[in-house]
């Protein structure tokens, strides 16, 4: 009966309640969407493996390393595979059609990335074709590419037109796998460089290294860097996660701003709900006086007020959480090129729910205090 009363009380002033619910829904929706944006920023970090290391030039990623490093790295104890390659940085037809594209030693690369699911026949065709390329499903869908299509990339770092043949399309094993990349054979890039710009041949942007045991990552990384100490191109080896985080940290200020906005949104809605609850309780002080008269103690009366506040925030929060999914889908469609992975995570849902509960509890604190402090005689007098 008390639950029915909480529900009916919450919807007693339909206009006021509706407006408050709209506010809570939008706030939780905004909170969930902003959290998902932050998650999307960290998607590369989430997708990284603890058994993969990345080696780059210690000065900066833009400085190359010689190809022969590959064999030296392979010989380090604990290393089970090495793939080498470059960030290609090309675009398709016009600059706005930008996406991540790499030239990699594909056989090694695919062996290190079992989360890229490729049809076995496509894999064989890809590895046989020097000009073959593999793309993620989302990228193929974005441009309507089909197997056998020619994709001509315009190079920015490596000038010229680069015709590639689409030989395989990969899907992610997990939702966190980026399906918007294009990868083609590093040999194709290197041979072209040898012909046209020989000083840039046999130069590597980064190595991806598979290791036997994640616990040995720090040791193996140190051993690799030791190999090239005092050379012309000293190296910096770190876990794939740390490597990805170094990109995220460049935009940390933006992420902090987004985090701050998501919290401000919740604080604003807290003020709105607290105002609604304060008005409701002020209007109903006589009812709480009646409850007290009938023998209801402070905890029960506080429970009625907190319960009503929670009904409001949980209904609004539930709607907001439900709407976060279609909102994320819209976001993904509109900005997929910037956020290859845009999934609402279970943690985001939990945080949204926690925010709704926290707002419900905090908004009821002051009104509950007011209701508990009113003297019965004063409360009843307000009615008359």
């Amino acid at each position: 009966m008390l639950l029915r009363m909480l529900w009916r009380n919450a919807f007693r002033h339909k206009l006021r309640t509706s407006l408050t619910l709209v506010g809570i829904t939008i706030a939780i929706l905004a909170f969930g969407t902003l959290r998902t944006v932050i998650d999307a920023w960290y998607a590369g970090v989430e997708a990284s493996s603890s058994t993969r290391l990345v080696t780059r030039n210690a000065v900066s990623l833009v400085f190359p390393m010689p190809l022969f490093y590959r064999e030296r790295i392979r010989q380090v104890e604990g290393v089970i595979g090495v793939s080498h390659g470059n960030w290609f940085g090309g675009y398709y037809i016009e600059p706005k059609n930008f996406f991540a594209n790499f030239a990699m030693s594909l056989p090694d690369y695919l062996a290190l990335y079992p989360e890229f699911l490729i049809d076995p026949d496509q894999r064989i065709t890809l590895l046989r074709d020097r000009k073959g390329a593999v793309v993620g499903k989302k990228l193929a869908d974005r441009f309507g590419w089909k197997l056998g299509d020619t994709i001509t990339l315009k190079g920015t770092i490596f000038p010229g037109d680069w015709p590639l043949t689409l030989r395989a399309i990969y899907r992610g094993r997990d939702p966190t796998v980026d399906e918007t990349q294009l990868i083609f054979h590093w040999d194709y890039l290197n041979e072209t460089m040898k012909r046209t710009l020989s000083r840039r041949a046999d130069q590597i942007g980064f190595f991806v290294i598979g290791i036997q045991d994640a616990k040995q990552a720090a040791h193996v990384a140190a051993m690799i860097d030791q190999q090239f100490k005092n050379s012309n191109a000293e190296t910096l080896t770190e876990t794939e996660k740390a490597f990805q985080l170094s990109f995220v940290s460049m935009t940390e200020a933006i992420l902090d701003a987004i985090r701050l906005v998501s919290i401000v949104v919740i604080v604003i809605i807290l003020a709105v709900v607290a105002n609604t609850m304060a008005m409701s309780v002020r209007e109903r002080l006589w009812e709480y006086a009646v409850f007290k008269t009938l023998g209801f103690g402070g905890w029960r009366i506080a429970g009625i007020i907190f319960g009503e506040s929670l009904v409001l925030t949980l209904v609004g929060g539930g709607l907001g959480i439900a709407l976060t999914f279609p909102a994320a889908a819209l976001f993904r469609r509109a900005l997929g090129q910037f956020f290859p992975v845009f999934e609402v995570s279970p943690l985001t849902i939990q945080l949204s729910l926690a925010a709704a509960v926290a707002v419900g509890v905090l908004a009821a604190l002051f009104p509950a205090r007011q209701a508990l402090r009113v003297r019965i005689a004063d409360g009843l007098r307000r009615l008359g």
Partner: protein
Amino acid sequence: MAAEVARPLVVIREVSKSYRRGSQQVPVLQNLSLSIAEGQFLALMGPSGSGKSTLLNLIAGLDQVDSGSIEVDGVDIGALSESELARWRALNVGFIFQFYNLIPVLTALENVELPLLLSGLTRRQRRERAELALSLVRLADRLDHYPGQLSGGQQQRVAIARALVTDPTLLVADEPTGDLDRVSAEEVLTLLDRLNTDLGKTIVMVTHDPRAGRRAHSIEYLDKGVLSDAPQDALA
């Protein structure tokens, strides 16, 4: 054979009560003593501001005395803590207010069931008792009506059912006919009379209405916080 003397249910000894209004202390009751016998139907009358409602609130445990003591059925209610007093009220006192004070979002049945939530009865037992109380006030056909769908007289009868449902020792009524038309007021007074005579409930009623006063078995007249003789025109 000597007539059987009813035992006192409420004993008020030298009670004083004052309220603070701004910086001033306003005395409302002064050294008031009174005894109310079990089964009595007492009307408290007097002009506005005479202290009737204050005395009623003190008897019902809604407020605390400044000095003196009030015993109800042997319990010194001034010695009870706030939570003990709340529990005592739930078990021993039924309240009837001038403006009914029904919870608007609850049906008649739910309003009557409300005090039973503190009783530990099962849902079914609560419902049965609430239905019985509503049938006693002849509202068995209005169980699912909300207060806003009932007339003033019907709402007051629901309030009486709510006051009765816990089978309290004492019923207190503050101007129970003050907001009713003449016909409804008569119905409510008849009902109170029945509760007193048929069920033996002790009733203390505050009223301005001489007709209501005449329906009580005895009248105490308050003026300026002390009991006094009623003026000639008080019950006219």
